[in-house]
């Protein structure tokens, strides 16, 4: 028996080329000293595998038609065995993948690993980044509730800003003039077939390039890349001090990736998947569509941008970003790689992180959104017995002022806080502002009566 197994093993080894082809690949020499900073790319790859596995499992339960998707999501979340956890793992896995792809890219940028001869690794990586975001976004749409439906509309409006072909592009995205059965079918196809196919091709290329050009050696100050001598130097270095990829370098990748996946599962069990909102009807207007956290910074950016330039930036911004990223390894192709010698690059990367982080925080708070559920001011919070003032306070809520203005901790954040407005503005000035509006404030002149205006001013005049 043992003899037979050994023979079968030898036969397979010969026909499949395990010791001839695969093992040399696994044990190919890599530069020594590649420490924990090298693990993010492979962790992103493991997240992708996690997403494929959990995604396939979800397709067993999910109904990709507009009329049934919502119910099947309810089923997955509340009835299917471990369905809730499965959905949650897929959600946190997506988060993890976006995060790790981002961190991997930052690491590559900070250590300038994109320089000669690894330009194409960077270029394919840029495409992988955007494909990851496209997967993240279409995945969010497959959560086909009212938030999903309205997010699709918002996306269509954004592609509508493409010059000349905007409307066509928006139609193509929605699958027609309006949201409908065809919209979800298309998003489902993109998310489960088209994008993954491209993703696998690009990941294959990305990995092949690592074998072709070798893993970049840890950067060292004072050892610039010279395209003329680099390849020779790299080969010599490998011969002298290279270590086999497996297991000397790969153990860290695997340990870190396994830890990442365990964290994702723990988060999934602990927090569960994002709640479903109302059914996917575009006639349900009490929706406030916001993307999942990974796209919130972009969402916040558009909310904060001056309205005059925004329509152009929605189109030009992404185009310039992609072109800039693609151009990077060709603009700076040789020279120092060490972050110690490239302080501006490190500073720039830091700025991007801080910028994105702040946008994310702002996006969570969404101070630009009117607070429709602001509680009306009560006699208590008004501190006054004057009937005119009380009427003014009541009108302040009724006319929507409170949605955007904060008074004593009540109300929205869109406009300036008015808790002590009478210290800043005289009744005359208040009147001008309310009647004429300006910027983000509507001109209430044509909306409220003279009498109502007088009450509101009387109320505001007590706020000091």
């Amino acid at each position, binding site marked *: 028996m043992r003899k037979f197994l050994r023979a079968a093993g030898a036969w397979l080894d010969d026909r499949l080329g395990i010791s001839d082809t695969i093992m040399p690949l696994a044990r190919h020499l890599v530069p020594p000293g590649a420490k924990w900073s090298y693990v993010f790319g492979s962790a992103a790859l493991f997240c992708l595998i996690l997403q494929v596995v959990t995604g396939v499992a979800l397709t067993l339960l999910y109904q990709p038609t507009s009329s049934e998707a919502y119910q099947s999501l309810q089923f997955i979340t509340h009835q299917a065995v471990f369905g809730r956890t499965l959905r949650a793992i897929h959600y946190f896995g997506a988060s993890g993948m976006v995060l790790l792809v981002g961190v991997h890219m930052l690491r590559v940028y900070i250590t300038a690993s994109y320089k000669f001869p690894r330009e194409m690794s960077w270029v394919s990586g840029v495409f992988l980044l955007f494909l990851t975001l496209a997967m993240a976004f279409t995945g969010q749409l497959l959560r086909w509730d009212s938030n999903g439906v309205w997010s699709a509309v918002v996306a*269509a409006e954004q592609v509508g800003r493409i010059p000349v072909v905007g409307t066509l592009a928006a139609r193509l995205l*929605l699958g027609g003039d309006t949201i409908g059965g065809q919209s979800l079918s298309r998003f489902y196809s993109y998310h489960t077939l088209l994008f993954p196919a491209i993703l696998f091709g690009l990941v294959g290329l990305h990995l092949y390039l690592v074998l072709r050009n070798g893993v970049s050696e840890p950067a060292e100050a004072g050892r610039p890349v010279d395209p003329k001598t680099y390849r020779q130097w790299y080969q010599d270095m490998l011969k002298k001090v290279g270590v086999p990829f497996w297991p000397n370098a790969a153990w860290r990748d695997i340990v870190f990736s396994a830890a990442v996946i365990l964290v994702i599962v723990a988060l999934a069990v602990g927090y569960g998947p994002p709640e479903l909102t109302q059914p996917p009807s575009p006639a349900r*207007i009490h929706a406030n569509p916001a993307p999942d956290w990974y796209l919130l910074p972009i969402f916040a950016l558009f909310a904060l941008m001056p309205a005059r330039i*925004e*329509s152009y930036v929605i189109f030009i911004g992404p185009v310039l970003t992609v072109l800039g990223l693609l151009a990077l390894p060709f603009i700076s192709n040789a020279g120092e790689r060490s972050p110690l010698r490239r302080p501006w690059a490190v500073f720039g990367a830091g700025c991007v992180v801080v910028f994105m982080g702040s946008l994310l925080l702002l996006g969570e708070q969404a101070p630009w959104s009117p607070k429709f559920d602001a509680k009306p001011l009560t006699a208590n919070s008004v501190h006054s017995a004057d009937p005119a003032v009380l009427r003014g306070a009541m009108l302040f809520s009724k006319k*929507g002022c409170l949605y955007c203005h904060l008074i004593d901790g009540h109300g929205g954040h869109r406009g300036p806080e008015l808790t002590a407005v009478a210290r800043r503005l005289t009744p005359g000035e208040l009147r001008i502002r309310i009647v004429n509006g300006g910027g*983000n404030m509507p001109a209430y002149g044509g909306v409220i009566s003279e009498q109502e205006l007088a009450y509101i001013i009387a109320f505001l005049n007590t706020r000091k």
Partner: protein
Amino acid sequence: MNSPDLPADKAPQPAVDAADQQAADHELSAPRREFLVKLSLGLSGVAALAVGVPVASAVLAPLLQPDPQTWRKVGTLTDFAVGSTHLVKFENADPVAWSGVSSESAAWLRRDSDTAFTAFSVNCAHLGCPVRWEQDAGLFMCPCHGGIYYKDGSVAAGPPPQGLTQYRIRVAANHDVELLTAPVPITNITPT
């Protein structure tokens, strides 16, 4: 790779002759080779095109068959008091059977007088979020980025670059109020 093999010219002569002979047997004449290259590329091209037409049609389907528009009943005259504003729900022009509730749309319908109606798209002209009519304030407000419109649909404040789109409304002989369906309004930066 530097192989330790002998250069070809130092290899034993007879072997080379035999190999040459064999290679010559299999070699194609230049015109024939050219023809076969063209044939394989050309035929693959035709095959790709034959498959590509239906595939591209599926991809571009939304652009190839513009959706029709149709009048939909949203109520009767007695449902709407003069001066009031209502959210009306209707079915899109040409829903597929598996649309479910996602083929519904809504509009803000106001009865201006006995015979005149105005209907606004619920889609904000900024990024398409659903605007709400605030009856007491007499304004449309958008939850997404605080876009605000006056009751005539013109921009009152915030980021929207243009006013709310309107639907066409007609009152049929039997007093049905009908709305002409329309695409989701897409704001462009270039005039169309």
